[in-house]
């Protein structure tokens, strides 16, 4: 993301907090994510007026209201393409996308590969609670097989998707997993994601204590392990291997799985404009003349 959009004097995490009270239940994992986001924003020194937080619909998608920057709370599943438009129109803005697993990986799942392969310079923080919370407890695309929810009273018949694995495969250039209870670690991941030039996705384990009694903080605590320094995040094969290891040992590695540098969409578009001698004062009359008989 662009380094020039930096504030002075230094803002503290609380300076990013809006007056609105979060609409989340007590004990919701999203509180931890929000705190980590404030912390990361302060650490990055993001300017309030040069930052846009974009979301779709769902419990976690209410997050933009709790941040004092510009925000966009749009349609269910459409946060990523909306963010694309904002970033392309205004490359100088810092764009952070937030939302949940239903918004991002069910209704909005079709957008993920395309944002990833375009390498749009935005950071996508997903609060993954493996449940539809706002509609009071339906199975989500990350819920496990057999998961009992209101629409699956006899257990889910579907295998879950793994956001880390598919993000690597789709060509995202920064892929990480965080844990809501590991706030400092998560803040650091968000900082790295925002600093990364290109599309960064951070899938955050963010338990819902009300509607998901399986994937709780207590369930995750013994499983979560920090990815150690021996992992080479530039090696796509190793990154995939690590991502897929969860299905065999049940552990949940948190940290950066994959990071690679490739040109961003913004850089490619600048190149395209330069190659076409892009001008703010293009002679439209001359363009009309190309239709002359």
């Amino acid at each position: 993301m662009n380094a020039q959009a930096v504030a002075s004097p230094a803002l503290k995490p609380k300076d990013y907090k809006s007056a609105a009270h979060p609409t989340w239940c007590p004990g919701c994992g999203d509180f931890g994510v929000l705190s980590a986001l404030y912390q990361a924003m302060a650490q990055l020194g993001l300017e309030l007026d040069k930052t846009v937080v974009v979301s779709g619909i769902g419990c976690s998608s209410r997050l933009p209201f709790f941040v004092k920057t510009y925000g966009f709370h749009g349609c269910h599943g459409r946060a990523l393409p909306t963010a694309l438009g904002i970033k392309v129109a205004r490359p100088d803005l810092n764009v952070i996308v937030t939302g949940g697993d239903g918004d991002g990986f069910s209704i909005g799942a079709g957008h993920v590969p395309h944002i990833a392969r375009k390498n749009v310079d935005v950071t996508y923080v997903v609060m993954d609670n493996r449940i539809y919370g706002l509609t009071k407890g339906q199975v989500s695309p990350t819920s496990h097989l057999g998961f009992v929810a209101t629409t699956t009273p006899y257990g889910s018949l579907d295998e879950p998707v793994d956001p880390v694995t598919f993000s690597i495969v789709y060509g995202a250039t920064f892929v990480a997993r965080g844990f809501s209870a590991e706030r400092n670690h998560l803040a650091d991941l968000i900082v790295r994601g925002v600093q990364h030039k290109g599309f960064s996705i951070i899938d955050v384990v963010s338990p819902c204590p009300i509607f998901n009694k399986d994937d709780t903080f207590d369930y995750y605590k013994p499983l979560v392990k920090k990815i150690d320094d021996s992992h080479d995040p530039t090696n796509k094969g190793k990154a995939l291997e690590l991502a897929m290891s969860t299905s065999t040992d049940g552990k949940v590695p948190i940290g950066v799985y994959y990071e690679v540098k490739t040109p961003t969409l913004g850089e490619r578009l600048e190149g395209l404009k330069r190659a076409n001698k892009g001008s703010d004062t293009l002679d439209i009359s001359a363009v009309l003349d190309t239709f002359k008989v």
Partner: protein
Amino acid sequence: MNESKELIIRIGGEGGEGVISAGEFITQAAARAGLHVLTFKTFPAEIRGGYAMYQLRASNDPLTSQGDGFDVMVAFNGEAYEMNKSLLREGTAFVYDGPGGDFEPENLPGVYMYPVPMTKISKGDLGSIRSKNMVALGAVAQLFSIPMERLRETIQRKFQKLGVDVVEMNLKALDMGASYVRSEIKKTDPYALQAKGVNSEDVLILSGNEAVAVGALAAGCRYYAAYPITPATEIANWLARYLPKANGVLLQEEDEIAAIASAIGASYAGAKVMTATSGPGLSLMSELLGLAGMIETPLVVVDVQRAGPSTGMPTKHEQSDLFLAAHGGHGDIPRIVLGAGSVEDCFYLTIKAFNLAEKYQVPVLLLSDTSLGIRTQGIKKPNLNNIQLTNRLTFNGNGHGNGSTHYKRYEMTESGISPMAIPGQAGGAYIATGLEHDEKSDPIYTQAGHSKMTEKRFRKLAHLEEEDFSAISWEGDDPADLGIISWGSTHGSVQEALVRLRSAGYKVAALYPHLLFPVPAIAIERFAARIPSGKILVPEVNFQGQFADLISAHTTVKPIKYPIYGGLPFNPEMIVNKVKEVLKK
């Protein structure tokens, strides 16, 4: 020789055989020779095979429609013959591939029959079937006095990039076709292109789709969200080449939902944006249209309508998306719907669509249609100095505190229009949300709040017609025995029908609203006051009579519906006959 001021030539063949390009050469040559030109095309939905047709109308007088029927038919194959056989009348000239083609026409009494062995000459003498259309073109040019020099110029210009050999090969095929006619055919028909000489004016030939695209560029569009769909794709194709030259961006996206979402995002961030689609795409976009209305973000959506519902007939003509454009999406959505009636409209109304979107901070839908989108027409080069561009009312940054605590994005104003902050502006931070919200854009759920905000959003459009469409054009007699209200490309056929009816002594008038929704009730009532009989006819290419229904719902006028729904546009004769029939009753 024919004294008529005009000539209509139709060329039919298999898609991919060069029917369209042969027609385009004649069109260019006729325009270069100073004639007014208007074309009409149909093409198959499949990429190869199927019937393709190109019709050119060339005249000394300005043209508004494709006309009725044709004077000359050129058939490249048996299918084209079969498709048009019933239209070959006494007096029609029929040029066809023969002998050696894939069919032998029956004896058609009174039709001037000109067999030209197009396949034989191209395959045999020239060694490539690909030159068939140029052989046909040469024969047609020789037969109907299409100025050979102008034709050669356009061929040279078109192929020069491909090298001298390609130019030479095409010119040779052209000459072979022409010399065959000179030596083997005795012309007996009266048709000839009445060319004046050389065109000296600033005339542009472009399609409706191209006119929309160049209009968008002129309007300041700098972000275009694309998703391919027939028959609108040409708009994206053109802008893809030109937007980067204007420091703009065109992105092809994964679907129409992503397209409109990104366009709204870019507009929120301050850009002038557009996306163009056809019916199926507009259906997908409806939810996001509501978002644009709710967050009061300028947006232009062009719908080049095709025959529906569902996949329908993707390459055929219909005007059946009006209800969708006016009412599509859930909830009460403020929006403006415009209808383009000509290639010139496509240019100027696209600019107007941008200006209205900026002025009122609403989504503006511009309806075009298949026939108009793919039709090419010669138009006078627009004078860009006469074009005014509107920019949205923006937040001035003064008198407000820090952060999002004071700025009222949706400030209650008399007009309903509130100053819009653009990200990056200090003190303007707000959360654009599809939730109902108060002036500061905080979510609300109260009865009073929702009522007040709904009224505010619609208040913006309360005076739209008086302010922006005060000069809705009408023509004809006052008073008149019958009035016609037409929208979209039906306009052209109505215009021509009106001339014929009035010269035959009928007292008729016509109204051509560009504003379709909100329904321009003032203009319609004023127009109706000129028609004491109350007979107001609304011809439109959809089954339900969609505009007629909107007129019934929003005015005191009870129109007589004249719906057609076969996939083809009206021609003037149909309108003339219908008017006569209604007046007889």
